[in-house]
């Protein structure tokens, strides 16, 4: 089904990806070529830090949940000492899927096929009728493990590569955006335990990653809901907006809406409410942060895309996982702020309205992703344009490239990092 147009043969001395990715254009085959997808699995999804879930999904010792890491079915477990592990859901005997339930609590897992039993750390603790193996503890086998697991503010990431940059190095400046989110909790903690909506999307994953900080589309794609609800969000992404699009490095990018909210200087405007509607929350914030509470409540939550698959859209968190070259799944949930019950209820309700398969925002984005996937299978023109704002970019006081609210600065940052990873030698 997938039409793949290949560009002119690679000039000598030029890598395939420098051929396909130009400063102002990217080639359509990047979204449609199954061989590129296979290479992305190796060089990105099986290597870099991928967002998998949140520690709050396994709050108790021996809790587990099944999660997706690219095409892998992984089990996020918390062992009895509290440490979080990511196991690959595959029995070391004959490869059966070990866990079948979506979640549970168990110190050990018993494979239903022949009864091999594993600790929730992945280590094999025994098998039935051990004489067939010459006795107990004779096999140096266990469930597969994601070799590197690390958390930041409870967000759990896994890397299938044994070595590489640390999670902190990978997150770089994007860590500060997670801190901003967490800083909206009076207790400095968020949880992602309001369940996940799972949205099947017939599109290449990169269309999603690029769209998340595309400030050019909201007025068009979301005009229908902004108009009906009188939402002020549209104006944040207009040509006169003072918001900026920032390339945070390592493929991460954000729409920094703070300049707009600072102009209004209205606490909670970003959340579409006012302090008198959530008085206990505002009081708790003042209690925790004193004079700084006002700034936090004015500036609001981040809108950041963390390469390759974690999107924090103010009060929602998205986990994007690829399935095939033309398919991915968006997992979405409502952020829950520790110590802010008034906010948490509203965030659940707003999220249900906005995201997921029937969301009044995300269903329309998803329609665009799917039409985009069909569009790029057409033969001509072969290239997608990412030059918007290239001529008006500048460097901010921290050395990051920034563009206007509607500029494609974030996409260019994404492609820069993508190319670095895809060109890296193993």
């Amino acid at each position, binding site marked *: 089904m997938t039409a793949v147009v290949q560009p002119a043969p690679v000039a000598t001395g030029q890598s395939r990806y420098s051929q396909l990715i130009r400063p102002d254009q990217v080639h359509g085959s990047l979204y449609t070529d199954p061989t590129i997808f296979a290479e992305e699995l190796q060089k990105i999804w099986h290597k870099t830090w991928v967002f998998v879930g949140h520690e709050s999904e396994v709050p108790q010792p021996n809790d587990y949940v099944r999660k997706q890491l690219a095409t892998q079915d992984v089990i996020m477990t918390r062992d009895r000492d509290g440490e979080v592990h990511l196991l690959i859901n595959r029995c070391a005997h004959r490869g059966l899927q070990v866990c079948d339930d979506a979640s549970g609590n168990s110190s050990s897992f018993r494979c239903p096929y022949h009864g091999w039993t594993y600790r929730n750390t992945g280590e094999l603790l025994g098998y039935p009728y051990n004489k067939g193996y010459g006795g107990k503890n004779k096999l140096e086998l266990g469930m597969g493990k994601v070799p590197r697991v690390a958390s930041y503010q409870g967000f759990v990431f896994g890397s299938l590569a044994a070595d590489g940059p640390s999670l902190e190095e990978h997150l770089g400046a994007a860590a500060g955006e997670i801190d901003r989110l967490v800083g909206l909790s009076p207790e400095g903690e968020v949880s992602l335990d309001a369940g996940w*909506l799972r949205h099947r999307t017939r599109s290449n994953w990169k269309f999603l990653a690029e769209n998340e900080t595309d400030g050019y589309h909201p007025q068009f794609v979301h005009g229908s*809901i902004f108009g009906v609800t009188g939402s002020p969000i549209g104006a944040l992404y207009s040509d006169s907006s003072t918001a900026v699009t920032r390339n945070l490095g390592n493929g991460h990018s954000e729409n920094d809406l703070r300049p707009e909210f600072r102009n209004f200087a209205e606490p909670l405007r970003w959340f579409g409410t006012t302090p008198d509607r959530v008085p206990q929350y505002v009081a708790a914030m003042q209690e925790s942060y004193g004079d700084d509470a006002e700034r936090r409540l004015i500036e609001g939550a981040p809108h950041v895309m963390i390469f390759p698959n974690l999107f924090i859209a103010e009060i929602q968190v998205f986990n994007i996982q690829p399935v095939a070259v033309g398919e991915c799944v968006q997992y979405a949930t409502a952020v829950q702020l520790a110590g802010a*019950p008034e906010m948490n209820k509203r965030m659940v309700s707003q999220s249900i309205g906005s995201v997921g398969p029937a969301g009044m925002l995300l269903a329309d984005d998803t329609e665009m992703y799917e039409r985009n996937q069909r569009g790029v299978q057409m033969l001509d023109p072969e290239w997608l344009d990412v030059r918007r704002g290239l001529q008006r970019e500048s460097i901010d006081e921290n050395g990051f490239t920034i563009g206007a609210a509607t500029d494609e600065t974030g996409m260019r940052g994404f492609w820069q990092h993508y190319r670095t990873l895809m060109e890296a030698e193993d």
Partner: protein
Amino acid sequence: MGIDTATLPERPDVAGELLAIPAGWDVREVEQFLYKEARLADENDYDGWEALWTDDALYWVPVDGEGDHPLATVSVIYDNRNRISTRLKQVRTGKRYAQAPPSNLRRIIGNVELLGGRGNRDGGVDLELGANFVAIESRPRGNELWGGRTTYRLRKFGDEIRLVYKKVVLVDNERALPTLGFLI
């Protein structure tokens, strides 16, 4: 963490108790109402469909089987009357791209079962019933087969039947669902 469900009202699917089937309901009449509701949804007759609802409407499509508490966890749809109206206003703009152009749809409703009565906020008793459905949706992305069980609550105003509550439990709501842009 998250929301302490002890602080919330009872979840709406099990709130109160299931009473005896209230008097004055005829199963044929009920079926005719369900078929009409299905036809209005299939034909994207938003005005006709919206007019079926009462003021205390609740339209719920949970995930993970019967779903968790809808005020504490996410659902695909959890619309009160106000949000039903917003959803329909959006689609009427013609720029709700997930439903523009609208899906081509036909659904079959069957296994209609009167289940009991459910006390309502006005002190009356609504009829509660269940039915299975299969729907074929056709869109440019392909054909989609939807199926599940719907629990309805109906109320009579004189001779007129109105829809109070509709909970749609999709058979595949534990897995990733495609865009659900139409009225299910």
